[in-house]
C-alpha cells in the first residue's frame, strides 16, 4: 500500500475573523428601503402640511374676497340709490327750471306730414342665360362669369 502524497498547497487553513463583521448585503438593502420610506413619508407629510396650510390660506382669502364683494355690492347699491335720487322727476324739473331756464309748454302745434311714398322694391336683373354649349366651353377653358345678385 502506497501512501498518497499530501499536497500541502491544497490544504487551506480556514481564515480567522479578526476585524469587524461586515453586514450582509440584504440588511443594507432593507436600511436603504427604510430610509427611502422615511424620506417619502416625511415628504408626504410636508406636502400635506403645505397643502393644508395653503387651503386654509385660500379659505381665508376667499372669506376676505367675499367680504370685499359684499362691500362692493353695498357700494353699488348706494350708487344706484344716489343715481335714482338724482333722476327723481321733481329734481329734474327743478333743475330744468333753475339751471336751464326751461318753462312748461305753453303752445303746442301738431303738424300733419304726408308720408313719402315708399321707394319701389329693387328687382334683381335677370340672370344671363347661356347656352349649354357655352357653359361647357367655359368649364373646359376655365372661364368664370361674375354676376351681381342685386343692384348696388
Amino acid at each position, binding site marked *: 500500500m502506497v501512501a498518497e502524497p499530501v499536497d500541502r498547497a491544497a490544504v487551506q487553513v480556514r481564515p480567522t475573523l479578526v476585524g469587524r463583521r461586515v453586514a450582509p448585503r440584504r440588511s443594507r438593502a432593507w436600511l436603504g428601503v427604510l430610509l427611502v420610506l422615511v424620506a417619502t413619508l416625511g415628504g408626504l407629510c410636508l406636502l400635506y402640511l403645505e397643502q393644508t396650510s395653503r387651503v*386654509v390660506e385660500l379659505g*381665508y382669502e376667499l372669506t376676505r374676497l367675499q367680504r370685499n364683494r359684499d362691500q362692493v355690492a353695498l357700494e353699488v347699491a348706494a350708487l344706484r*340709490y344716489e343715481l335714482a335720487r338724482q*333722476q327723481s322727476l321733481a329734481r329734474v*324739473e327743478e333743475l330744468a327750471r333753475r339751471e336751464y331756464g326751461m318753462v*312748461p*309748454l*305753453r303752445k303746442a302745434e301738431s303738424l300733419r306730414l304726408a308720408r313719402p311714398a315708399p321707394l319701389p322694391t329693387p328687382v334683381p336683373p335677370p340672370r344671363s342665360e347661356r347656352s349649354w354649349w357655352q357653359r361647357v366651353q367655359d368649364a373646359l377653358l376655365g372661364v368664370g362669369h361674375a354676376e351681381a345678385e342685386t343692384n348696388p
Partner: protein
Amino acid sequence: MSDLATWRLRVIFAALVLLASGIGYRVISFAVLQGPVLAQRAEAFRFREDVVPAHRGEILDARGRVLATDVPADRVSAIVREVEDPQRTAQLLAPLIGRPAEEILDALTQPGREWVVLQRQLDPAVSAQIRALDLPGIVLDPEPKRAYPMGDFASQVLGFVNWEYRGAYGLEAQYDAVVGGVPGQLVGERDLAGNVIALAPSSWNPPQDGATLVLTIDSAVQYLAESILERTIQDQRATGGTIIVMDVRTGAILAMANRPSFDPNRFREVTDPSLFANPAIGAAYEPGSTFKVITMALGLDAGVVQPETVVEGGAYRELPDGTKIFNALHQAFGPETMTEVLIHSSNVGAMEVADRLGPERFAEGIQRFGFGQPTDVDLPGEINGIVNLPGSPGWSLTTFYTTSFGQGIAVTPLQLVTAVAAIANGGVLMRPYVVQEIRRGDRVAVTQPQPVRRVISEETARTLTAMLAEVMDSYAGRFAVPGYRIAAKTGTAEIPGPQGYERGEGATIASVVGYGPVEDPRFCVLVKIDRPKGSPWGERAAGPAFAELFRQLLLLKGIPPSQPVTSIPSGGSQP
C-alpha cells in the same frame, strides 16, 4: 440632615401637594364636572350658524326708474360691560344717532343687560363718525335698509318695509314673499375671529335674493298726477284727493296718486297710521253724479232708454211716502233727452232711468260693473264698498233712487275707474293691476291683461261714449282738452255724517271721471278732490285738473289731436 432642612422640605412638599391638588381639582372640574357643558359651549362657539340675509328685490316703474331699493346701513349696539365710560359714550353718541343722551345712558346702565341696540339703519356717513370715535364696547353691524329714492312718490302704492325687514302696506306687503327673498344659512367650524375654517366641515345654504318688480306705474304719468293733485288741493284748500289713470285696454294702472301721503323713508315719523293706507282702494265715498254714467249705461244696455228718450225733468221726484228728492240747487230742466240728463246732471232724469230698470235689474247691473266687491287689484287693503241691494237692511225706496245719482252707495275710486274703463274699452270689465313683470334672474313672469266679464254691449258702450263726449263739450267754458274729443262726467257728492249729509263749506267731494280720445280710448282718468273750499262743484274744483292731466298725458304719450288746435290755455300747462 438638619431639622430645618427637613422642615423646609416638608413645607415645599406640602406646597407642591397643594398646588397639585388645586390643579387636579380644576382638571377634574373642567374635564368631568363641567365637561359636558363646556364642550357644548365650545361646540356652539366653533360651529356657529349664521343667517345670511337675502337681498330684497328692487321695485321699478314702467320706464325702469328705481322706486325702491336696498342701501347699506349699520346698527349700533353696546356690549354693556365693556363700555368704560357710559356718561361720555352717551354724550358722544347722542347727536350722531338722534337719541337723547339720557336715554342712551339709561340703556347703557340697565342692570342685567349684556347687550343693547342703540340705533338702527344708520347712514354710512354716521357709521364712519361713530367708528372714528373708537368707543369701547360700541359695535357697528351692517344691516340692510330699504330706501325710496323719490321720497313720497307713489308712497301709498309702494308701502314700506318695517323694522323686521318685512313689507308693510302697499306692494312691499303684497309681494313680500316674492320681493323679500329667502335668507340663507352658513354653518361651519370657525376660528377665534369667527372666520369659517376652510378645511373644516361646513354647510352652506345660499340665500335666494328677492325678485325685481316692474310696475305698470309710469313715473312720468304718476308725477303729472301727483303735481296736478297737489296744486289743485292747494288751490281749492281741500283736505286731500285721489287721481287714478288706467289703461282702458288692459286694466294696467299708470298712476295712482293720493294726498295726503307720507315719505316711506321716514315712516316712523308718521303720527297718523291711517296715512299708510291707500285711499284709492281702501276708502269708499259716495261718488255723486259720476255714477250717472253707470246708471245710464245700464238703462241703455237694457233698452229702457235711448239717447234721445225724453223725460220730464222737474225739480224733484216725490216718492210714495212723500219724500221729495231734488235736483242740485232745486233746478227744473223741463223735458230733457238722456244726453241732456247727463249734461244737466239731472237727478230726476237718473231716477227715471233707475225706475224703468227696476230695483232688481238695477242692483244686478251695479254688481255686474263690479261695485260692492273688490276689483282684485294686486294691492293689499282693498275694501268692497257699500251697495244696498234689494232685501238688504240698508235698502229702501229712497236709497234705490238716490243710488241712481251716486248717493246712498259707497265705492272706491278704483272701482269707479275700473267700471268706467269698461265702457271706454267697449264693454269689458278688466282686472286692474299694478305689477307688470316679476323678474327673477333670467326668468320673467309677465302679467297678462285679464278680462273679468262683459258688462255692456259694444253698441251701448259706443252710444254712451258719444253721449259723454257731448257732456264734455258742455263743460268747454270751465275746462276742455283742445284738439281732442274726451268723454267725461263730473260729480259733486255730499258727504254723509252722523246727522245726515254735511252742510256748509268743504262738505262735498268734487270729482270728474272720463276717458279718451273718444275715437280710440286709451286712458281712463278719475280726479277726486275731497272737501274743496274754493268751489264745491266737480266741474270747477276737479274739472281743470282733469283737463290739465289729460292734455299732458296725451302729449306725453304722443297721441296726435283729432281736431285742429294751435294753443294750450295758459295756467294749465304746469306739470
